[in-house]
């Protein structure tokens, strides 16, 4: 049963592991303390009054940059981004930097990501906004210079807390593509091929890690069921190193296949790998191993009752 699909932001938060505890930890990293909340509270009104102006400073700065056009060009997105940014500024001085606050930052991050806003451009614009905020604090807060500076630094901690969230979210989204490609490559790298009725070939090439071993087993079992296969030839010529874990994976795959009613012939075990398995003390005698792929396929054919006959010498062999 699938539960109701949560909003993309909730989904992202779950994927990124952002919860109450991690938000608290992020606050600790930037060093937001009770003192900071007090200082920020003292200028809350001033910042809220200037929220519109500060929002404009951010978007005007973006509009002035070539790379910022992505955002300023799309009216609907721009309007939503402005709205969120304004809310952001007001929230920045409310003193509640919990899960809901983090959720709002991620919403903005997703929006930036959708329009492909460059991180460096975002950072420059945000810094520009903070500069304006600093100016407003210095001129209009009525605080002594040192106090004004401290208050600005407190605000800056919150800003860095925000940047941390936004940058992490944007990077996470960009890496999503890499993760998808990785899983696609993994899928492609474990083909199960049918070579005759009820006979499958499973070539394994490269490194077998736990994730890949699971995938190999899964796709093999699925193929055995779909093809009602009786014999599988598993070729491991392309596996350079087999340690105890990988051997264990192979044994489990073979056992599972057997439970599904298919016998497995393992081919392509190199002399080097055979020696290291013996030294490791791994008993593979329960596996049906045949020297090379050709031998394995021939044995599989025999066990299924196939007889391959060469009718006449082909032209190519006669040298014509």
């Amino acid at each position, binding site marked *: 049963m699938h539960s109701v699909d949560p909003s993309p932001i909730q989904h992202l938060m779950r994927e990124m592991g952002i919860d109450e505890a991690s938000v608290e930890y992020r606050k600790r990293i930037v060093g937001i303390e009770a003192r900071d909340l007090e200082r920020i509270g003292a200028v809350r009104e001033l910042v809220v009054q200037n929220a519109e102006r500060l929002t404009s400073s951010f978007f005007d700065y973006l509009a002035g940059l070539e790379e910022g056009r992505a955002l300023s060009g799309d009216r609907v997105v721009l309007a939503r981004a402005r709205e969120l940014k304004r809310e952001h500024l007001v929230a920045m001085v409310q003193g509640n930097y919990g899960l809901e606050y983090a959720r709002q930052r991620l919403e903005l991050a997703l929006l930036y990501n959708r329009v492909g806003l460059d991180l460096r451009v975002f950072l420059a614009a945000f810094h520009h906004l903070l500069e304006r905020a600093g100016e407003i604090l210095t001129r209009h807060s009525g605080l002594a210079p040192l106090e004004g500076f401290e208050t600005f630094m407190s605000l800056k901690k919150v800003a860095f807390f925000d940047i941390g969230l936004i940058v992490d979210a944007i990077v996470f989204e960009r890496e999503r593509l890499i993760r998808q490609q990785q899983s696609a490559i993994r899928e492609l790298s474990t083909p199960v091929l049918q070579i005759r009725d009820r006979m499958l070939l499973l070539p394994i090439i490269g490194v077998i890690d736990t994730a890949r071993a699971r995938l190999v087993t899964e796709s093999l079992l699925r193929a055995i069921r779909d093809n009602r296969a009786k014999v599988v030839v598993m070729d491991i010529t392309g596996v350079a*190193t087999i*340690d*105890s*874990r990988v051997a*264990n994976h192979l044994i489990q795959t073979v056992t599972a296949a057997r439970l599904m009613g298919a016998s497995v012939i393992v081919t392509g075990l190199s002399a080097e790998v055979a020696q290291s398995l013996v030294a490791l*003390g791994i008993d593979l005698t329960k596996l049906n191993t045949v020297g090379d792929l050709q031998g394995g396929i021939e044995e599989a054919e025999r066990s299924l009752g196939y007889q391959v006959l060469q009718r006449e010498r082909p032209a190519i062999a006669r040298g014509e």
Partner: protein
Amino acid sequence: MAHQPSSVPIERELDIVTARQKGRELAARLGFSSTDQTLLATAISELARNIVAYAGSGRIELSQVEEPGRRGIEIVALDAGPGIADVELALKDGYSTGNSLGVGLPGARRLMDDFELRSKLGVGTTVTAKKWLR
């Protein structure tokens, strides 16, 4: 020259492959046969796997060693994990506190020529293993 030991941090399964490849490269450079390269790579694999499985993180150091009349490779596998309570038992075939075949450590010992395991509970484990060029 070229005696620079290489150190591979071991934190994830992927790092095991890196350590193994580094070992193979070094072995090939020193003139180890292809069988010995594979035996060495397998030993590194077992030791690195133990780090990931039991300590979480650690590192594998690979270096060339020389003694009068012989040359070889030294693998040092270090971690700051929970340590091994009974070293003798851990080196026994078929013994495992995890869900494995229990051949990792004793197997690695058989794959190498010299093998020394030092472990202290709560401090960590260091395995030093050597293979000599034949």
